[in-house]
Structures are given as C-alpha cells and as structure tokens.
C-alpha cells in the first residue's frame, strides 16, 4: 500500500516536471513577433523551395525562400492573391567564400552559406491583417523576435508590389 502510494507520487511528480519542461520549451521557441503576433511555424526549415537570392552590399547574404504547402501550391499554379494560410519563410546566411571548394576550382569562385543571419516570415490572413495587405510579417534571430521598429518597416517596403500580392519572390524556373 505504501509502495504503491510512493509510486503514484513519483509518477505525478514526473508528469508535472514533463509538463513544465514542455511549456518552458514552448515559451522559448514560440515568442511572438511584435505588431503581427506571428510565431515561428514548426518545421519550416523542411518546407519546399520557392527560390534563392544573393544580396550584396550591407546584407551580403545568401537566401533561401521556402513555403508551406499552401504557399508553394499557389506559386506553382500562379494563383493570386495567395490564399489564407499561406506562409513564406525567408532564411538568410552570411555569404562566405569556400576555401575547400576553391581548392578544387583553382580560383576563388565558390561562395557558400555561412552563419545564419535571421529568418523572416510572411503569413497570409486577409481578415486578421486587413490593414497590411492581408499579410503579417515577422523577423527572428536565434528564436528571438526583432523589435517593433523593425516590424514597422516590413509592410511599407512590400506595399508597392501589388501585382504580386506584395510578395517579391517569384517561383524559380
């Protein structure tokens, strides 16, 4: 009797600890970005590819633009505006020369993705984000959202591209 009470107590304590741990990891993984309240969508790193880009100048980065299934289907079918539920992820890494690769080519011609810079998301919800073209915007670095000032710059920059439902990226050929 005593033994079973002890076992029960241990199980309850362990369960409580697991619930606490699960919540703690959720709160660190799931901080919401200011203004739009967008959180990092789980599994986005495995999403399908929409396109790539290299931006010189201050950013000097290599980027991959990924989409969830709704967004990728819309891109492939050329469907505009994007349907609600579309999410586009833009992942950026430092643009670094690859000494390893250049040894093979015999000259400095190869650049690869270095350290991660940040990740940005666009989330389509035509009702929730009606005042910003139907899109919510977010930027995170190491899981932490950027501040409100940065998030205020997203929509004004995207706004002119009305022909593409304010999305810059085209589906790569």
């Amino acid at each position: 009797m005593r033994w079973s009470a002890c076992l029960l107590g241990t199980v309850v304590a362990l369960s409580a600890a697991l619930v606490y741990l699960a919540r703690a990891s959720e709160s660190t993984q799931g901080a919401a970005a200011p203004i739009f309240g967008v959180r990092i969508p789980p599994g986005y790193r495995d999403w399908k590819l929409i396109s790539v880009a290299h931006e010189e100048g201050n950013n000097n980065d290599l980027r991959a633009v990924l989409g969830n299934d709704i967004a990728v289907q819309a891109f492939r079918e050329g469907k505009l505006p994007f349907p609600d539920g579309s999410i586009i992820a833009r992942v950026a890494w430092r643009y670094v020369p690859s000494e390893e690769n250049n040894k093979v080519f015999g000259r400095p011609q190869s650049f690869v993705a270095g350290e991660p810079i940040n990740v940005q998301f666009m989330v389509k919800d035509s009702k929730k984000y009606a005042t910003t073209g139907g899109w919510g915007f977010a930027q995170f670095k190491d899981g932490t959202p950027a501040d409100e000032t940065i998030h205020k710059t997203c929509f004004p920059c995207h706004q002119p591209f009305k022909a593409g439902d304010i999305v810059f990226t085209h589906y790569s050929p």
Partner: protein
Amino acid sequence: MKSKAKLMIAGITAALAVAAAGAAVSAQDKYTLKVPNGLAFSEFKGYEDWSAIAVSQNNGLLAVILGNPAMIEAFKAGIPGNGKPFPDGAKMAKIHWNPKTNETYPGQPLGPNTLHDIDFMVKDSKRFADSGGWGYAEFEYDNAAATFRPGGATDKPPQGNDAKCGAACHTIVAKKDYVFTEYGKR
C-alpha cells in the same frame, strides 16, 4: 474538285500531325533521360519537393542544394561531422541558375533568371563501390528549347558514359563522405 478537296484534307491532316509531333517534342519528359551507363533522371523523381540543405554561388551561377528525406535526416543526426557515412538511398540535387539582378527590389538582390543545369548524387555503397559509394550525374538545360540533355565531355564537370563525373573532385572531401555542402543552420 472532289479529289482536290481530298488532297486539301490530307494536307491539313499532315500539317496537324507535324504540329502535334512538334508539341510532343517541345514538352520533353525529362524523366526519360539517362546518362549512358550512368544514372537516370527518373532516379531523382520528385526532387522539386525536397527540402533545402543550403544555397551557394559558384562562378556566378546561383545554386540550391536539395536533399531527399533520408539525406536531410542524416544531416540532422550529425552526419558526416560525427564520422558516420550517409546511408544508402540518400540523394541530393543541385540546381544551378543563371542569375539576374532585380533592380527595382530593395537591396537589388541577385535571383534566378534561367535554369542552367541540375546535378545529382545518390548513395549506394555497393552499386558505386568504385567511386566512394556515390553515383553522380549532370543534366544540362537548354532554355530556348526548354529541354534537358545529359552533360558530356565538354561540360563542367566533364561527364563520361558512367556515374563518376563528380568523383575526382569530391575526393578532396572524402573525410566528409564526399559531400562538400554543409547543412545550413537555423
């Protein structure tokens, strides 16, 4: 008059047949292509839906390196940094694009313009035992004709009638199980 009409119909039919054949040729089924004595394009069916390993730029061309689920899982498990080889069945696709600058976009980013070529790698330690366990293939894209063709001796890298077009270069990274690309962290 009757025979003239018949002749006309025959002519139109022939013209239509030629047009249909032309359309069939222009809509090439890339999955019927195969490097002689090497890999078939069809061994990589569905690569458009694979997840991104990383992006790169080489000799001006923009590239993405995609991996099938076995490849992505291997990277996430710490391969090849943990000293273990990629499992048989792991596949990669590297898509090269001719780039263009998007002048009207903020930051004037370089993006894909036209498809240049697609390179494939597949791990099969028995089938490709004599090239580090990897089979390689390269398919060049002709943008004007919208068709692929297997790369040849004059392409980069030169491709013979085998599945070894990448073996010589990739030997330099034998310690990383012959894979140059590292999984882009997030």
